[in-house]
């Protein structure tokens, strides 16, 4: 075989949700970029649930958008139903979720990629990493494909998803493929191991897809989208996306369903011991739910359309790896699914991924210069988690090529920071899913202010236009001015005001008060108080009004969290060198120096989050740092 060579700036391996964001970011930043996929038809494929967003994941999509990513814009084009989850709860946990038309989602992303300058799409299996070990540190130089072709580049992003040595299991039927019967990548794992990269094995699963015409919807509850649709992208005009929505349906498992599952547990590859990989706790298969929560006599099943132009429906809540005959039997016990026809079986999938502690928070491998990783390959799960890592890896790959310092999103900046820090710092024994409870500064990291938090960085990096950035500055100015105006506007105990308060069952005034104080009252708020606020400007957008209200209502907690963030940043700013050998520091406990040596944290802050490193160990590290600093001065 005659092998030929081509040279690019950045190579991205995989064109799933991580790979797409990485490739787009790198190309948009001016790098000649090539993205490999086992099938061009599977670009940005959604092999599992047909939604984008959801609790905390909606936050991630907003943040990716705020940085200049594509996921938000793409789902705004492809959604067929949209809902703001937790709308009745506090603003920190509002989360947008959309049902996607999977075909449209893939098509639109492919269209965007194909029309992006500097971006080349290439079908083919990457089977080898080319690494040079001439220098002090190993450095990635390119990849080799199954056809023997060599591609050279200064930076490579691995975003192989669930394809590495993948196998799909349905009962005792094992197929050595990636999701949806797509070709698995069987060579790259060995090459990675040869380069000293540690791989682990995870599993995940998906429910069956069934034929809409075989479902009796009269036995299910209809689930509608929101009346007013909120876009994912800060750039999408809300008016442009108000459109007809498709319904989802809700039904429940029955005791009979659970009996069938229990009777056939021995035929499950998970309980039968065939599956080696660790599965996610947050997304249990139906057999897991039945075993782990025996007291529950029913489980919800959401029946969701896979698209507008297909009859396939997704049975959310009933993922499984039980044999086909058991799948039929159990699905048939669910009201509305008595005669359901399966189009695609439910299955579990096992795959190779890495222990992400091998990565820096920039998503570059600690041991190999120029090699980046993103998405499920890093042990995460979910389209949104993948996209969030993808954009960071793509930006940093480009910056590597351009000799610019890597960007680093810390925990105080957003969910992306929490996600990456958790992955590279903490022990992770299952596919990692984002959750709002993982963010310690949740009230600051809302989906509604992702632009304030991350668009400045996106602009600095070069993914956000000047125009968009200036729009943001204007928005912030408007919000600030309005808050100030409300704080300075004095409301006396006039008859009109008292009558207004009485109408809204709010305590009457004894003396004058600022309008801001009234907005703060739970029973009132910004919109309601317009009645007694003649000077209110009518130029504020919906988004700006929302910010004004949130800032005033939750001021106390917001201040508290901002204070915590300040403290957090002080510890993040105390940097630890990679060259420290922690075994040589006296007074560190054994567990602490072992973990510190394994992870090599970049800062005291990161060190403090490693399990097994105690506050006393941190005290010791602080003293050590000062000691080193002074020795250098001498």
């Amino acid at each position, binding site marked *: 075989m005659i092998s030929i060579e081509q040279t690019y700036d950045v190579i991205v391996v995989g064109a799933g949700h991580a790979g797409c964001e990485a490739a787009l970011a790198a190309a948009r930043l001016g790098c000649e970029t090539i993205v490999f996929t086992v099938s061009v038809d599977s670009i940005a494929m959604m092999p599992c649930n047909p939604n984008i967003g959801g609790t905390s994941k909606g936050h991630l999509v907003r943040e990716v958008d705020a940085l200049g990513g594509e996921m938000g814009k793409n789902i705004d084009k492809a959604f067929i139903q949209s809902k703001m*989850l937790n709308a009745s709860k506090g603003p920190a946990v509002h989360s947008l979720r959309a049902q996607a038309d999977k075909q449209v989602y893939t098509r639109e992303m492919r269209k965007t990629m194909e029309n992006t300058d500097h971006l080349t799409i290439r079908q083919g299996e990457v089977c080898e990493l080319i690494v040079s070990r001439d220098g002090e540190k190993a450095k990635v130089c390119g990849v080799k494909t199954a056809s023997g072709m060599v591609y050279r580049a200064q930076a490579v992003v691995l975003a192989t998803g669930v394809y590495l040595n993948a196998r799909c299991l349905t009962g005792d039927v094992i197929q050595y493929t990636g999701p949806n019967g797509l070709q698995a990548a069987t060579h790259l794992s060995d090459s990675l191991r040869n380069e000293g990269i540690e791989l682990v094995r995870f599993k995940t699963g998906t429910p069956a897809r069934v034929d809409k015409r075989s479902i009796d919807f009269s036995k299910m509850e209809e689930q509608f989208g929101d009346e007013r649709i909120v876009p994912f992208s800060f750039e999408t005009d809300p008016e442009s996306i108000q459109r007809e929505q498709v319904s989802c349906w809700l039904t429940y498992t029955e005791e009979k369903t659970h009996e069938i599952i229990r009777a056939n547990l021995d035929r499950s590859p998970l309980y039968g011991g065939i599956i080696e990989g660790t599965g996610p706790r947050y997304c249990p298969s139906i057999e897991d739910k039945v075993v782990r929560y025996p007291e529950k006599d029913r489980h919800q099943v959401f029946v969701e359309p896979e698209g507008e132009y297909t009859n396939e429906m997704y049975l959310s809540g009933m993922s499984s790896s039980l044999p086909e005959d058991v799948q039929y039997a159990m699905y048939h016990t669910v009201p509305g699914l008595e005669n359901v026809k399966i189009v695609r079986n439910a299955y579990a999938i096992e795959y190779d991924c890495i222990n992400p502690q091998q990565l820096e928070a920039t998503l570059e491998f600690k041991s190999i210069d120029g090699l980046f990783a993103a998405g499920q390959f890093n042990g995460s799960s979910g389209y949104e988690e993948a996209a969030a890592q993808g954009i960071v890896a793509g930006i940093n790959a480009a910056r590597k090529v351009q000799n610019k310092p890597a960007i680093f999103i810390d925990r105080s900046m957003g969910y992306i920071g929490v996600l990456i820090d958790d992955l590279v710092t903490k022990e992770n024994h299952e596919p990692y899913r984002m*959750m709002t409870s993982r963010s310690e500064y949740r009230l600051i990291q809302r989906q509604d202010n992702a632009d304030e938090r991350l668009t400045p960085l996106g602009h600095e990096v070069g993914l956000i236009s000047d125009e968009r950035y200036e729009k943001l500055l204007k928005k912030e100015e408007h919000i600030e001015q309005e808050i100030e105006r409300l704080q300075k506007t004095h409301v006396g105990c006039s008859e009109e005001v008292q009558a207004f308060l009485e109408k809204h069952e709010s305590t009457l005034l004894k003396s004058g008060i600022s309008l801001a104080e009234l907005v703060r009252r739970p029973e009132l708020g910004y919109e309601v108080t317009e009645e007694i606020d003649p000077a209110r400007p009518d130029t504020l957008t919906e988004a700006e009004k929302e910010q004004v209200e949130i800032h005033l209502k939750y001021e106390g907690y917001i201040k508290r969290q901002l204070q915590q963030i300040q403290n957090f940043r002080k510890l993040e700013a105390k940097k630890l060198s990679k060259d420290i050998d922690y075994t040589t520091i006296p007074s560190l406990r054994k567990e602490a120096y072992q973990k510190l040596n394994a992870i090599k944290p970049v800062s005291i802050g990161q060190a403090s989050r490693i399990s097994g490193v105690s506050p006393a160990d941190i005290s010791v590290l602080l003293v050590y740092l000062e000691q080193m600093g002074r020795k250098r001065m001498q």
Partner: protein
Amino acid sequence: MIRNQEDTIAAVATPLSSAGIGIIRISGPEAFTVADRVFQEAGQKAPLLEAPTHTIHYGHIVEDGRIIDEVLVMVMRAPRSYTTEDTVEINCHGGVLVLRKVLDLVLRNGARTAEPGEFTRRAFLNGRIDLAQAESVMDLIESKNEYAMRGSINTLKGKFSEKIRSLRSEILYQNAYLEAALDDPEHISLDGFSEKLITEDEKWITTLSSLISQFHNGRILREGIRTVILGRPNVGKSSLMNLLMGEERAIVTNVAGTTRDTLEEYLTINEMGLTLVDTAGIRETEDVVEKIGVERARQNAEAADLILYVVDGSENLQEEDYEIMELIRTRKAIVILNKNDLDMQMLPRELEFLVQKKVSPFSAKSGEGLNELKTEIQKMFYEGRLTMNDELFMENARQKESLEKAKSSLTMVKNNLLDGMPEDLVSIDLTDAYEELGKVIGESVDEDLINEIFGRFCMGK
């Protein structure tokens, strides 16, 4: 979790070795403000905040208009202090109990308890101590921490920590339910949760209030001189203990049952607190023939400030006696030669020569020698040969501070729910309370919530 490095800290800066003077040091940006809140200078003087550096002020520590102690307060402005931060040192005169009250007051007025070795650490980090001392600073942090940890384990066995533990697991459960519902609103509903949580929360607040008041009464604070009674079975250990308790019995609280095999009692001799530990008090009555577990005795002896070793003078020394002597060789101990009233097999002088410790002749039957023993203990204390476990003292202050913080977080929970604030805010305060209570019993919080969510509630698709 790591605490802020730059807030204001306070601790007792002198060893708690006598009933005389003790110094409370406050260091950090708020030091003067905190001191001004508790200190009233004699005459109409300007606040300490405006006082020149290195000046001494005479006045009183006052709580709600009530004088707690007569004190001298020294003001040292940054950088001219040990830590190089703004520092106030309060010289108290009223003995250990008063010292505790003053510290308590300082902590409730904006300072937090210093971590073990924290003043010294700050002094070093701020360039006050030279490089050569850096390693000893690290050693200090390490050893003080180990001591504090052991201390907290020693004091917090039994019912008290059991209560904290169950409180924590209840809070965690409700918080996990709440978080699970926030993360998976389509599967887990919050309907009616708010009312239920208020009921629970009120219960928790009541429990915490009662625990805090127990701290106030000193029933949980047991930072007296930890005194362990050692000796073979049936040499008169329990009799000695009973005699020492004597008329005190009425006013002390028995914390038996904290562990199955040690009996602890608290008594004071002229303001000097003593925590008496009878190592095998209960076991002996249960099983007379059982020998002392040497290992357990050793553990107790290691944590002790003072050992009272009881020898039966009417019998010859036995193998176990030699083991005990070896154990106490390097420790503060008094040997009590019991059964003075019977035929003695040895003279105090002989025994003194053997163990190289002061030997007190004693009769458990008649009580002869008891006063001499008390005087001897007191003498050791006042001469500074015997010190109280000040890390334990600080540990207690920290624990109480955490209980107070947890209570105030839970109160916020209730107020917010009543005000109709959204549930996710409540979770912030529940988490704070959970973490504070974790500090009390030295348990870490890493991933607890996530594990509880997955462990208890059926999430997701």
